[in-house]
């Protein structure tokens, strides 16, 4: 049995399923309790599981992540929500110095099995503090896993896997695709999820394993590496231009599915990396280095990186900032040349 869901519904369902299976799962965050979260991801869960398992918190990201580490040390499986990824920074020390290293520094005596959920990415005219994509800050930290789903089916399966994982996981939810697979056409209403095959979400329990990419479209001409919103945007450009691209949705950045990447680039000999985050020191740089290390002799042209600009996310010029069809298209043209 399965049914069509939006990303939000799928995430809500994943939380519901894990809470129902495991009494150690607790949810907390700003406005997640009675109200059900500013994006409604936790709607109905407090009513169903009670106030001691789904609760609002003080506005302190340091506190939210710090107490989640303590709860994890006790044996619970906290799923804290940070209202926007842009607001995760006050909690950074608890994530980077604490959660990420608890297992290592105690030689496995203590672990931090938390999953920090947070909406991220731009495209909603949120200005510089509701639009950021800070994934590279976390992929750089030894001991943190970073997961970014691109559709309802994966969102549910990955979130369940993340919550069950015994290590700390940063789970970034691209808010631009909460309600539909945004392809970059910002001047048209987004197509709703129920028209998209990946909105078909199985009922009940299933997982999408962490560390496994998905080939969204098989192709021979170029390999496109993307995650989150940019999977849809890049895919649409390839279709538009009639390029026989192999589009890979990474899904998990750490640990990365290097096998799938290697197999694809060996086949195509060309690689384009697309992310919305700023360019310098972005995850694209890591991907580019890995492809070069693993596939140097297979590459026919230099690797292309398509990214957001190295500025804060602007408000009025949001769509000039966003790595949309033109920026991706230009790179695709360059890389497709013989």
């Amino acid at each position, binding site marked *: 049995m399965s049914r069509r869901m939006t990303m939000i519904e799928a995430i809500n369902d994943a939380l519901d399923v894990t809470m129902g299976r*495991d*009494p*150690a799962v607790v949810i907390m965050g*700003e*406005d997640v*309790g*009675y*109200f059900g979260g*500013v994006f409604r991801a936790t709607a109905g869960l407090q009513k169903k599981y009670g*106030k*001691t398992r789904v*609760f*609002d*918190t*003080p*506005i*302190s*990201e*340091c*506190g939210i992540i710090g107490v989640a580490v303590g709860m994890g040390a*006790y*044996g619970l*499986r906290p799923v804290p929500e940070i209202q926007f990824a*842009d*607001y995760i*920074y*006050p909690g950074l020390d608890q994530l980077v110095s604490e959660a990420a290293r608890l297992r290592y520094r105690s030689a496995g005596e203590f*672990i931090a*099995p938390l999953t920090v959920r947070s909406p991220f990415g731009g495209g909603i*005219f*949120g*200005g*510089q*503090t*509701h639009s950021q994509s800070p994934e590279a800050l976390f992929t750089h930290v030894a001991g943190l896993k970073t997961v970014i789903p691109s559709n309802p089916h994966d969102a549910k399966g990955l979130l369940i896997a993340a919550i069950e994982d*015994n290590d700390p996981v940063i789970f970034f939810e691209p808010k631009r695709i909460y309600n539909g697979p945004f392809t970059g056409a910002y001047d048209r209403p987004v197509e709703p999820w129920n028209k998209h095959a990946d909105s078909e979400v199985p009922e009940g329990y299933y997982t999408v394993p962490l560390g496994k990419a998905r080939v969204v479209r098989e192709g021979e001409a170029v390999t496109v590496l993307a995650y989150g919103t940019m999977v849809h945007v890049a895919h649409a450009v390839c279709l538009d231009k009639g390029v026989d691209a192999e589009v890979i949705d990474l899904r998990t950045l750490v640990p990365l599915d290097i096998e799938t990447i290697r197999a694809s680039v060996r086949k195509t000999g060309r690689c384009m990396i697309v992310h919305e985050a700023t*360019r*310098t020191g972005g995850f694209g740089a890591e991907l580019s280095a890995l492809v070069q290390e693993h596939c140097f002799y297979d590459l026919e042209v230099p690797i292309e990186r398509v990214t957001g*600009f*190295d*500025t*804060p996310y*602007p*408000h*009025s*010029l949001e769509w*000039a*900032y966003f790595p949309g069809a*033109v*920026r991706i298209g*230009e790179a695709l043209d360059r890389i497709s040349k013989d």
Partner: protein
Amino acid sequence: MLLFPMKAWERIAVADFANQQPLALHVPEPKARPGVEPDWSGLTLPPAGAQPRPDETCAAAETWPLCTDLIRVLDEDGVAQGPWNPRLDAETLRTMLRNMALTRAFDERMFRGQRQGKTSFYMKCTGEEATSVAPAMALAADDMVFPSYRQQGILITRGYPLEDMINQIYSNKADKLKGRQLPIMYSARDYGFFTISGNLATQLPQAVGWAMASAISGDTRIAAAWVGEGSTAEGDFHSALTFATVYNAPVVLNVVNNQWAISSFSGFAGAERQTFAARAIGYGVAGLRVDGNDPLAVYAATRWAANRARSNAGSTLIEHFTYRAEGHSTSDDPSQYRSAQERSTWPLGDPIVRLKNHLIALGEWDENRQAAMDAELAEMVKAATRAAEANGVLGHGMHHPFHTMFEDVFETLPWHLREQSEQAMRERRIKWPDWRPEDGDEMP
């Protein structure tokens, strides 16, 4: 399923305490959710004029009673009472009334503008006007303020042009912040108004630092900051108070307790246990708890704290007890989480109505003048709106040129931003092939 099996000693401990009560987690709950009649009986409102006014240079601990009391000046009949009465002349009172009414008129219009699609976002301060207008009048014009996003009343009181505020809200080509910031995240250095951050409470230690710098430099200007009660949970609040007390910083820290932080009531910031003003005492900072809907009390408390700071007697934390009469922002629907009757039954009323009644009681105002003023202010806002709209509204192409996106990241443009800027211009030419440099930077 606990992740760890119990160790032997833990099992013994459990057996030992078998007769003890199991622990229980307390999760705060507001009194009135949707559909419930609010009950304010737990709220004790002391009579206006009953609160003592200690000397501004007193020991911080002496303010303890004022941290749990409520400083009030205006009584039920609109008469100013007691030692906190700032004894303002009628002209000043009328200016205060006008500034608050203008703030409200502005909010009404901008909220509607957002609903009409002229911008992405707006936040009102309805019912809280006194907490920004009265302090702005009590401070010196050149004191530096570090606001949160709900202190538009300060800018309005300091005479910042409405048209420039609207240009910012529309993110248009005349926006002084170049369309970079979310609407209402103003910055106005010439008006002593620090750039607003979207990240909560960051302005508090910054205000303390500015005040320390003023003291280091032997200046006479002080700093003031504002933060919502919900945001006092951030670590920045603790850092600010610790530095303020250690260095006796000349700063006034305002907590606007409007009882709600989006959908979370003040209990999630600790209000079930203690007032926000009371926190000052633990740090050795003076604390005052004020009726935030009583503009005269707010004015007097700010004056007290400013005098204290100016005489090198230290910082003050002022809690303004008020009520967020409307939604958190244009993205919020408060009927989802709080009783609809809260606003109408809230016992401290409306700051504009209360000051108006005071002026009427003094024989210095009447309903006709009020109506005329409201009409005049609405017209003024309308005119400013029209003028700003000539510079464009959000999303219709009348924004700052593309290259400005890359400016101010650094003082000078490094090579990689220059490259990216060229990329942005090239993309524009591809998207709009008819565009020529001589057309200027308008999008078709």
